[in-house]
């Protein structure tokens, strides 16, 4: 799993916003397998905003529900900066705000293939042959 097609996140920095520590490990490991070497993590809305203040990532994975808070302000910041992102959620699309429901949403639990396809989708990377 080291060919360039699979490791399409090579040299990209990724921000993972996920409130549950154990799930964040899973996402980080998946991103690592997809080639990302610079993965940063935020567990709360405030921490995510602070990360954005410090440095903008190339792409982001956003859990919708952060311990009761919604991740949407982060999505708005990213969109304004032209940075692509995918949502992850346990609710499915029906639990999303109408404004964001049309975006790429990864339903939990997900495997690396699903996450990879979602990231390729927003990055407009062709699927690996």
């Amino acid at each position, binding site marked *: 799993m080291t060919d360039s097609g699979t490791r399409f996140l090579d040299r990209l920095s990724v921000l993972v916003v996920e409130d549950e520590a154990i799930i964040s490990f899973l996402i980080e490991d998946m991103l690592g397998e997809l080639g990302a070497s610079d993965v940063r993590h935020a567990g709360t809305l405030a921490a995510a905003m602070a990360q954005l203040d410090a440095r903008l990532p190339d792409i982001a994975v956003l859990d919708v529900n952060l311990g009761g808070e919604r991740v949407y302000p982060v999505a708005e910041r990213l969109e304004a900066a032209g940075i692509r992102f995918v949502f992850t959620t*346990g609710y499915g699309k029906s639990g999303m705000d109408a404004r964001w429901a049309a975006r790429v949403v990864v339903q939990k639990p997900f495997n690396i293939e699903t996450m990879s396809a979602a990231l390729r989708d927003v990055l407009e990377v062709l699927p690996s042959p």
Partner: protein
Amino acid sequence: MSNPADANGGARSAAVTSLALERIVRSPATLVENLSIGIYTCDRDGLIVQFNRRAAELWGRAPALSDPHIRYCGAFKTIDRDCRAAAPAESVMAQVLASGEPVRDRELILEREDGTRITILANVDPLFDEQGRLVGGVNCFQDISEVVRMRDQMREGRRVVRHVMEALPAAIYTTDADGKLQYFNTAAENLWGFTPKIGEQFWCGSWKILLPDGTLLPHDRCPMAVALKEKRALVGPEAVAERPDGTRVPFMPYPTPLFGSDGELIGGVNMLIDLTEQKRADAQQRGLIDELNHRVKNTLATIQSLAAQTLRGGDGEFEGRLLALSRVHDQLTRNAWEWADLAAIARDTVLPGVANGRVRIEGPSVRLTPRIALAMGMVLHELASNASRHGALSTPAGSVALAWRVDGQILHVDWREEGGPAVAPPTRRGFGTRLVERSVANELGGHPSIAFSAAGVHCTMEIPLPE
């Protein structure tokens, strides 16, 4: 009438009739005697000097004329509207004889000797002689019992309808055919949040009507207006009443036009069913299902991650981690997924699998939210599991002290291993360390610290608790 013979015959019989009539008309006493209206006359002192047959019928007796014991009225007893027996001196005849003024259309109840009662309408006039001196009075009275009974029945019917409408928990109001507000009950007033003016407001008593999407619906286009204009009953559509204080009440209207016996539109009645409670219950149920789904899906993702972490580490601890997660779930389920006690979590996740008596647990009951409970359960399990494999609990002499306290809104947790083998910081950060740091710092917004010393692992955590 063109036939002269017929005309003559007709004239003859008319003449016969008029002769008989003339006899009656010429004798007023006979005329009065035969009237279907009760008539009697009293002299100045109230003694009855004359009464006709109908009067006797209505009184239920024929009193002796000028009987000094029967004054003003020949009835056995007169009762006023308050069901009080009236003294003869209070009777209408006595009033007229005292004042010399007539009394018109006075309703009275007469009681007969057999106890039956009738309602009469009395008209009393004073009588004067040629010099204008009051000499007596005459009372013309008729039985209006049946009319009064029907009127009372109608009044009672209306009263019952009002009482029923008032007692109903549903908001109800009526309008006339033009939509002008005529009546509303207390439930309607409560739903509207204000008191509209009867006869001034049209179509609906609400302050403001909105469509479910929040756009304004003018009163003359509200469902009641449509029902009256189109002369048909409607169910819905759903609308929202905005009160003067800005609060909103979703409701379902049931406007129904009312028609008279001739089929003409005479008004309308509308019932408004408050949907607030139903909406709240629906939202709560949707919320519960969403929340359950969220938790289940996150739990599955957590299990997936645990499996991945465990397989990579190759330490075969998957089952222990899964059981720890499951035990915290059990604690939360016991309390409707609102809270779990830290003391119970510590016992359930730390003690199983470690030798009895080698972990001292000391701390008060602390109610943790599901998030903090799940994180603390996993962290404590990881610490205990590490201690049994590499730390103080891996040798017979070692022990662990777990203590916590709450200081303001901060939960302080202290895990101290003693008497075990000297531990050095691991070369590669394992799952346990990673979990403690990330759970406490990133997930719970607290401060973790793990020290690896010769005495053993010492881990402290400061965790902010929600208000």
